[in-house]
C-alpha cells in the first residue's frame, strides 16, 4: 500500500487556492457527520454577517457588516458593505469562528458598527444605505455561535477503551485507548503499546471501531490483551457512542461462504477487486477476502457489514465503467465474471443482498474538500472529488499521482468540508508539490 509522508503546512491558503483556480468547495450540508453538518441549512451567497473591521485606525476592536460573496465549505469570501463591486478588499473567513456574528449582535452588545476607513466618506447617510442594503436580506440565526460550540463537543474522551481493527492484521480487532480527540477524530493507542508509538487514527463514527465485547458478540477474531488491570481513569466507551448499523434479516436468503462479489480493497483503496465471502458472522457482518492476494491463514480477511457501501455485486464495475482489479495472477484477461465463476465453481452473491440506497448527497465532480488519506489515517489532505458513481466518490489528493486516489462512500466520516481542519485545529496536508514528494 502506498502512503504519503507529512508535508509542512505553512503557506497553504484555501481561499487563494479556490479563487486563483476558480474552484468549488463541497457544501457543509454534504457532510452530515461534521459540526453544523445537519444545521448548516441554506447559508449561501448573499447572507450578511457582522465581522471585525480590519480597515480602521481605531485602537479598539470594531465591527462592520459584510456579505458572503462565495462559499467553500466552512469558509466564506466576504465583502464589506459599501464596497459594491469592488473586490479589492474581499477576504476569506471561516463562518464558524467566534468573530463572526449575526447582524444585530453588535447592537445587542452595545458596540457601534464602524465603516471601513477607505469608504468612510463614500456615503453621507450610512443609515439610509444600510436600511436599503439589509432590508429583506438573510443573516445567521441568533444562536449560530452557540450551535457551533455545541457541535464541537464530542462524546469520546481520553482513556476510553474501544475495540478497533488491528492495523497489522486486518482480520482481527484489538483493544485501544483514546489518547486524543480532535474534531471527532480519535487517536487510538493499542493496549500493550503504552509508549504511544502504536497508534491508529479514525473518526468516532468509523466502521472500524466498536464497543468492548463487540468482537466476541459477532464471532470476530480478537487479539486478547495481557493487561490484567485497568489504569485509573480508564473506562469502556459506552456502546451508544458508536455508529449504528442497520438490522438485517439473516434467516432468509443470505450470504454464504465462497460467494463472490466486488469489494474495495482495504489495503489499496484505489482498487475495486474480485472478492469472496470467507466467513459469515453474526449481526450482518461478513469476512471478505480479496481474490488472489489472500494470506493462507486468512490474516488479511476484512470485516465489512452486509450493508456496507464498499461491497458491490459482481458486475457493478462493468455496469459503471469502473476498472475491476482481477485476482492477482489471473491471466485470462479481460476478466469475465461468467468465466471466472465457472472456473472457480462458485456463485455470485445475490444482488438483492447489497445496499442499493443512494442518498441525495450533493457531491459533484470537481468539488474540493479535506479528505483523510486512509492509508495514513492521521493525515487530512486537500482533495478533489473526481468521479461520482451513485454514492461512491473517487477522491484525488491534490498534487499526488492518480494511483493514490481512493474510492470513498459519500457518507464516509473521513471526508470534511473546506475549513474543517482550521475549525477543529487539525493539521491540514496541503497539495503536494513536485519538490516535497521527492
Amino acid at each position, binding site marked *: 500500500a502506498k502512503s504519503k509522508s507529512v508535508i509542512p503546512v505553512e503557506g497553504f491558503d484555501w481561499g487563494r487556492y479556490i479563487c486563483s483556480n476558480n474552484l468549488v468547495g463541497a457544501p457543509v450540508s454534504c457532510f452530515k457527520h461534521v459540526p453544523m453538518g445537519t444545521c448548516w441549512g441554506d447559508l449561501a451567497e448573499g447572507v450578511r454577517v457582522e465581522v471585525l473591521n480590519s480597515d480602521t485606525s481605531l485602537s479598539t476592536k470594531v465591527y462592520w457588516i459584510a456579505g458572503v460573496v462565495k462559499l467553500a465549505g466552512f469558509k466564506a469570501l466576504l465583502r464589506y458593505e459599501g464596497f459594491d463591486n469592488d473586490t479589492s478588499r474581499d477576504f476569506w473567513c471561516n463562518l464558524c469562528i467566534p468573530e463572526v456574528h449575526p447582524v444585530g449582535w453588535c447592537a445587542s452588545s452595545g458596540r*457601534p458598527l464602524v465603516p471601513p476607513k477607505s469608504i468612510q466618506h463614500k456615503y453621507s447617510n450610512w443609515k439610509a444605505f444600510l436600511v436599503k442594503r439589509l432590508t429583506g436580506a438573510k443573516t445567521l440565526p441568533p444562536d449560530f455561535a452557540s*450551535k457551533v460550540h455545541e457541535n464541537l463537543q464530542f462524546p469520546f474522551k481520553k482513556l476510553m477503551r474501544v475495540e478497533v481493527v488491528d492495523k497489522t492484521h486486518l482480520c482481527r480487532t484489538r483493544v485501544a485507548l483514546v489518547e486524543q480527540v480532535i474534531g471527532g477524530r480519535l487517536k487510538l493507542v493499542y493496549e500493550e503499546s503504552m509508549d504511544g508509538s502504536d497508534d491508529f487514527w479514525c473518526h468516532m463514527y468509523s466502521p472500524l471501531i466498536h464497543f468492548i465485547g463487540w468482537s466476541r458478540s459477532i464471532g470476530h477474531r480478537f487479539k486478547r490483551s495481557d493487561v490484567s488491570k485497568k489504569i485509573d481513569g480508564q473506562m469502556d466507551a459506552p456502546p451508544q457512542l458508536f455508529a449504528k448499523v442497520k438490522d438485517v434479516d439473516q434467516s432468509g436468503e443470505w450470504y454464504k461462504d465462497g460467494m463472490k462479489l466486488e469489494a474495495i480493497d482495504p489495503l489499496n483503496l484505489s482498487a475495486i477487486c474480485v472478492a469472496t465471502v470467507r466467513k459469515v458472522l453474526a449481526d450482518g457482518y461478513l469476512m471478505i477476502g480479496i481474490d488472489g492476494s489472500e494470506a493462507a491463514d486468512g490474516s488479511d480477511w476484512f470485516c465489512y457489514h452486509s450493508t456496507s457501501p464498499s461491497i458491490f455485486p459482481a458486475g457493478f464495475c462493468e455496469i459503471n465503467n469502473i476498472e475491476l482489479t482481477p485476482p492477482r495472477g489471473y491471466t485470462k484477461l479481460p476478466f469475465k465474471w461468467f468465466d471466472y465463476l465457472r472456473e472457480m465453481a462458485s456463485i455470485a452473491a445475490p444482488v438483492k443482498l447489497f445496499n442499493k440506497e443512494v442518498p441525495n448527497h450533493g457531491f459533484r465532480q470537481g468539488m474540493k474538500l479535506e479528505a483523510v488519506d486512509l492509508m495514513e489515517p492521521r493525515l487530512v489532505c486537500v482533495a478533489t472529488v473526481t468521479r461520482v458513481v451513485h454514492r461512491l466518490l473517487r477522491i484525488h489528493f491534490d498534487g499526488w499521482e492518480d494511483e493514490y486516489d481512493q474510492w470513498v462512500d459519500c457518507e464516509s466520516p473521513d471526508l470534511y468540508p473546506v475549513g474543517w481542519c482550521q475549525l477543529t485545529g487539525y493539521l491540514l496536508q496541503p497539495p503536494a508539490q513536485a519538490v516535497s514528494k521527492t
Partner: protein
Amino acid sequence: ATEASGRKWEQKQVQIKTLEGEFSVTMWASDDKK
C-alpha cells in the same frame, strides 16, 4: 418562507447601531429549531 431544503426562514426585526444612532431593519434569519 420555506426553502426546498425544508428549512424555514423567519422575518426578524434586527437592531443596527452605528456611530450616528440606532435603528432597525427587517431581515430573514433561518429557523434554528429545524
